[in-house]
């Protein structure tokens, strides 16, 4: 059928002289749609269909650096017409502060487990309507610890994105000592590799892993223990390369040899150069889970739900994991992942390394002593 004939048929259909079925049959569009539907099943099933204009034209996502497969957003835009605007942060404290100050226009954010309780008690999150998230399947999560923080007071406020650990990364071409503990991390920083170590611009992990040097709890709010940690931080400061949560460029560039590091960054660095090794300090440290949540008064609420639901879809989520390198607790997604990812010791560490790790505690987020120690450390 050539173009002219097609237009003629279309006119007839418009005028009502032929039926829709006849039009689809004659033009071959019906067959094409059927074939398309069969070959791309997830386009047609398992996802809510959105009426035109229902979602608006954009959605604002607030998240962490290198945390999403960009192609997934392109796909989301292609399917829904909604453009995804991304803002990234370096710490939960900063994310919380911005949202608290108001006027952000955020629709979806990615808070970490220990912060959700505070967001909810400050009335900053809206309870999620699970009916608007058909891809959210609570029964398919492997470990309740990764999903429970999303529910506060029996209400669902946030759904599981992924989880991970906070260890450190070394460039083994430069650091040949094979460290295995946080004690060695700080001792090497202050002896052999002065000016080559980075720590996060983030109170929880920076203070937490200084606490681990002494064998204290990662979450300690004890005055004396925090004072010890502060002293270690202040003594180490001249020997640090930088205090920055965006540490990958400096490591790749060869300016820094060691850094406090999250699972996925460790994985991404190792992909870039196998000399990068990810280490979980044997004293322990942090294990965490990140979530998707919708702030109260989100300007593009419908699009926010659509985006979360899209990202929770197993196939999409599996592509996310392949990009960011963080493990997920969703069995449907794990089943789609290649074997080498599931067996990767960075993503899914051995049980004895995971055992001493601690989830961040809500009290650390708002503890003024911790905030002030971090600020003093940075301005020293």
């Amino acid at each position, binding site marked *: 059928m050539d173009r002219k004939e097609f237009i003629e048929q279309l006119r007839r259909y418009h005028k009502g002289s032929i039926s829709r079925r006849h039009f689809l049959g004659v033009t071959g569009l019906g067959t094409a749609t059927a074939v398309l539907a069969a070959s791309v099943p997830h386009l047609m099933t398992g996802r809510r269909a959105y009426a035109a204009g229902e979602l608006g034209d954009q959605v604002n996502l607030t998240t962490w650096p290198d945390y999403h497969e960009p192609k997934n957003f392109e796909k989301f835009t292609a399917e829904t017409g909604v453009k995804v605007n991304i803002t990234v942060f370096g*710490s939960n*404290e*900063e994310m*919380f*502060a*911005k949202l*608290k100050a108001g006027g952000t226009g955020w629709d979806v954010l990615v808070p970490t487990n220990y912060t959700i309780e*505070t967001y909810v*008690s*400050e009335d900053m999150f809206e309870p999620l309507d699970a009916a608007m998230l058909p891809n959210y399947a609570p029964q398919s999560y492997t470990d309740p610890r990764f999903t429970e923080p999303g529910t506060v007071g029996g209400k669902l406020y946030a759904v599981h994105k992924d989880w991970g650990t906070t260890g450190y990364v070394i460039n083994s071409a430069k650091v040949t000592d094979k460290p295995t503990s946080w004690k060695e991390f700080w001792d090497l920083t202050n002896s052999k590799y002065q*000016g080559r170590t980075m720590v996060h*611009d983030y*109170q929880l992990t920076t203070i937490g892993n200084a606490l681990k040097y002494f064998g204290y709890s990662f979450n300690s709010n004890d005055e004396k223990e925090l004072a010890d940690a502060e002293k270690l931080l202040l003594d180490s*400061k001249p020997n*640090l*390369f*930088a*205090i*920055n949560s965006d540490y990958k*460029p*400096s490591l790749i*560039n*060869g*300016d820094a040899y060691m850094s406090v590091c999250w699972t996925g960054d460790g994985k991404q660095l190792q992909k870039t150069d196998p000399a990068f090794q990810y280490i979980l300090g044997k004293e322990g440290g942090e294990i965490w889970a990140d979530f998707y949540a919708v702030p109260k008064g989100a300007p593009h609420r419908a699009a926010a739900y659509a985006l979360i639901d899209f990202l929770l879809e197993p196939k999409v989520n599996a592509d996310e994991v392949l990009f960011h390198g963080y493990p997920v607790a969703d069995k449907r997604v794990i089943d789609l992942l290649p074997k080498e990812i599931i067996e990767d010791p960075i993503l899914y560490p051995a049980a004895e390394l995971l055992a001493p790790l601690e989830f961040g505690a809500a009290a650390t987020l*708002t503890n*003024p002593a911790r*905030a*002030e120690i*971090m*600020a*003093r450390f*940075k*301005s*020293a």
Partner: protein
Amino acid sequence: MTATAQTIATPAVTERRQSGRWLTALLLAPSAVWFFVLLILPLAVVLVYSVGVRAPAGGYQAAFTLDNYLNLPARWAAFKNTLTLAPLGTLICLLAGYPLAYFLAVKSSARWRVMLLILVIVPFWTSFLIRTYAWIFILGGRGIPALLDAMGMGDVRLINTPFSVMCGIVYAYLPLMVFPIYVSLEKLDKRLLEASEDLGAGPFATFRQITLPLSAPGIITGCMLVFILLMGEYLIPQMLGGGKVFFIGNALVDLFLQSLNWPYGSAVAMALVIIMLVTVSLYLRATAATGGRRDASLI
């Protein structure tokens, strides 16, 4: 206006003056509203916040206490960094910018002058963030240090030091110094230089006694522009200092966005405002006295 003047003035003149006053008020109104809403009011809010206390979950809670001000020494390092690097940066900008402005205004041929001036502006066409990022690579391990290493200078570290911050500062602020000086030098009456030469002064004496004093307004304006903006600098130390070279601006961002300690942050901000007012007024008074010109205005 005195009572006598009013009795002398004819009704028509009074009317004209009256409408002139209205016009003045009308023309000034937008900037007055602007200043009140965007400067005076926020400053009042900051002042009120600075005597409050941090709310349990962060933020502001009403109170009256001077603790925030008494705690200012805890940010001594940030104040010290700002108060040393800002004047030093201004001085380097002046030393580098003056010869350039002099060359542009006096030595370069009229044919090239416009072209050269445009070249000074060209960097502004690229985002400041991107230009500062470029410095990270120039000063980072694979940039100049690698070159120096290859030349046998050993392990040189440049990035995340006061030096790298200074590079970024001079690079970013130089045009702000060059333009006011250029303008004052360009207006310079060349006959004065000839007269000086005729009277037997050498080039150095002429420069010291004629050129320099006459370009003083440009120098004062340039220094003020650079210094005031530098005191509030945040981005350059953040990007080229790696969180190790800390300005008051960085301390403020931290206090508001990380520690959620708005009252203490407000106290630090007030301290910065007071320091600025004192240093700037001292500076203006000193330059007015030595320069012999009281009309040294901003631009």
